[in-house]
């Protein structure tokens, strides 16, 4: 396109064309392209610096102590993050249990049943879009005011995972809707034409085809929940916890909160401890993201 066409044209040897080619990329054009390139690179370079900095900071503490020991406020050299790692697993497990079924069912309703002309369906849709952009600390207020103190669930794994599942529910719904929408109508029509009911069509044709897309989106949503700290600050996650959770009614801490806790300590040993916990957190996220990408590539189907 544009001037580059001239580079390869059959008249490339003609002096007239060569003159045009020279005029095609004046300094201003080149500077513009360079500035675009720089804006793209800043983010990438920043990412590289961040990763290198964290690994270098964490290096002295990057050994088995970080997952085999419990937090220790007196002796940072023996402190670890086991209760936070186990807490993260408990909280995210329950979060998935609550938000995935609700998210998928909502997506099925909106894609397969809801008439978009009706005002209530449009209201549900705008509501979900808006919830997706509500600040996470507001979900913390919801969890504190209603789930923890209003319903009396207290500062427990249950409260934390309910709050986080409401937080990532819009993301799960949006991802599941896109997966369902990608299944072509002809599949549904064929199934209905053979006499299947609407639910049989959805359950036996649409959902199996949409599962990889839904799984990809759900993993990305849950990896967002793993990194969330703000709402859990309000839900008592910052309490000093030196035991692993034993059930949904147990007190808890999670990795991002434990990291925040260590960052707030003034002693320098806690800085590398925080960095080491960040490495653990990032490795978990990296594994989940790779799984999502692998799922998308492995199961993506062209119709």
């Amino acid at each position, binding site marked *: 396109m544009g001037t580059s066409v001239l580079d390869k044209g059959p008249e490339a040897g003609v002096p007239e064309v060569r003159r045009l080619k020279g005029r095609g990329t004046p300094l201003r054009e080149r500077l*513009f392209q360079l500035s675009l390139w720089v804006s793209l690179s800043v983010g990438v370079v*920043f990412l590289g610096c961040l990763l290198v900095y964290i690994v270098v900071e964490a290096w002295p503490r990057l050994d088995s102590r970080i997952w085999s020991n419990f937090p220790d406020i007196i002796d940072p050299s023996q402190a670890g993050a086991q209760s936070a790692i186990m807490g993260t697993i408990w909280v995210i497990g329950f979060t998935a249990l609550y938000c995935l079924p609700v998210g998928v069912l909502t997506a099925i309703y909106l894609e397969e049943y809801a008439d978009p002309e009706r005002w209530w369906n449009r209201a549900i849709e705008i509501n979900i879009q808006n919830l997706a952009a*509500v600040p996470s600390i507001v979900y*913390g207020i919801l969890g504190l005011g209603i789930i923890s103190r209003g319903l009396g669930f207290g500062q427990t794994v249950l409260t934390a995972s309910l709050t986080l599942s409401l937080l990532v529910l819009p993301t799960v719904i949006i991802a599941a809707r896109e997966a369902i929408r990608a299944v072509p109508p002809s599949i549904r029509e064929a199934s209905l034409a053979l006499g299947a009911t609407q639910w049989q069509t959805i359950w036996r044709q649409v959902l199996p085809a949409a599962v990889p897309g839904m799984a990809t989106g759900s993993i990305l949503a849950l990896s967002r929940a793993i990194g969330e*700290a703000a709402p859990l600050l309000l839900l*008592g996650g910052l309490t000093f916890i030196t035991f692993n959770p034993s059930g949904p009614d147990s007190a808890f801490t999670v990795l991002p909160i434990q990291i925040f806790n260590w960052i707030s300590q003034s002693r320098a040993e806690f800085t590398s401890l925080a960095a080491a916990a*960040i490495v653990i957190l990032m490795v978990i996220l990296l594994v989940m993201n790779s799984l999502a990408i692998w799922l998308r590539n492995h199961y993506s189907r062209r119709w």
Partner: protein
Amino acid sequence: MTSAGIRRRRAVAGSPGFLKRSQPRYGEKAIKVLLVAASLVSVLTTVGIVIALIPPAADFFGKVSFGDFITGTDWSPLFKPPHFGVLPLVSGTLMVTLIALLVAVPLGLGAAVYLSEYARPRVRAFFKPILEVLAGIPTVVYGFFALQAVTPLLQDIWPGGEGPEVFNALSAGFVMGIMIIPTIASLSEDAMTAVPNDLRDGAFALGSSRMQVATRVVFPAALSGIVAAIVLGVSRAIGETMIVAIAAGGRPNLSFDPLEGMQTMTAFIAAAGIGDLPTGSIGYQTIFAVGALLFVMTLVMNLVSIRLVRRFREVYE
């Protein structure tokens, strides 16, 4: 079939009872009820947020006048005597947001123009996921990096004077800006990719350069989508908590010097929520008053952004 036949068939098809099932399928009905119930969870979430915010905030405004709250310049709700002027928190929030936007808007738009107008498919396939990684990094990690790496670096290279304080709005805003780049880049790239190629080809045919096509044709055509992306970025910056709680400090400060520490609305909520405030105390209620203000601000921004996104989508589909 004759036209009369068609008319008759239509009349029958429109009337009640045509092709009606002899047996209603109760299972199918039950499933639909279940699906509707699931989709009401998201509606109940919004209702829950409003219910969680309003009664404690109303209690708060029973004790503190709304005018004092919104115009007061001293925020020290947990001291004696307490002052409830929210302006220092609002100015801190706006300061950090402004710095974040000064970073994220030019870089995000630059990246978007490059990816949509210049990059070859392979380059694009390489850079897009990398940018998305920036959005997936936990914000507590960004806060750590801002406090431990960016602030010391700024203090080292600051020409003359003392440079930024240990807690300052500049590092928090800068790092937050980097975090928001993918939001702005991804949405505005979508908007620019949605501009039909006919417009580009027309401009190229008239002898425009690639830069002219990008800045004078594609950019204006995608403007509403780009504005929506920026509005969403603003709303994310206002709502972000961990970066400001870690790197901007915890001192409410009505100042416009980015080198000083300030407290934002979200950072105040987090700081007040960490202490185990007794339900019903005025300290507990301030969380909800500030939370309500934050919710209303982001709600307005989100609705504007949703409306703009819808408008640009309608144009080119």
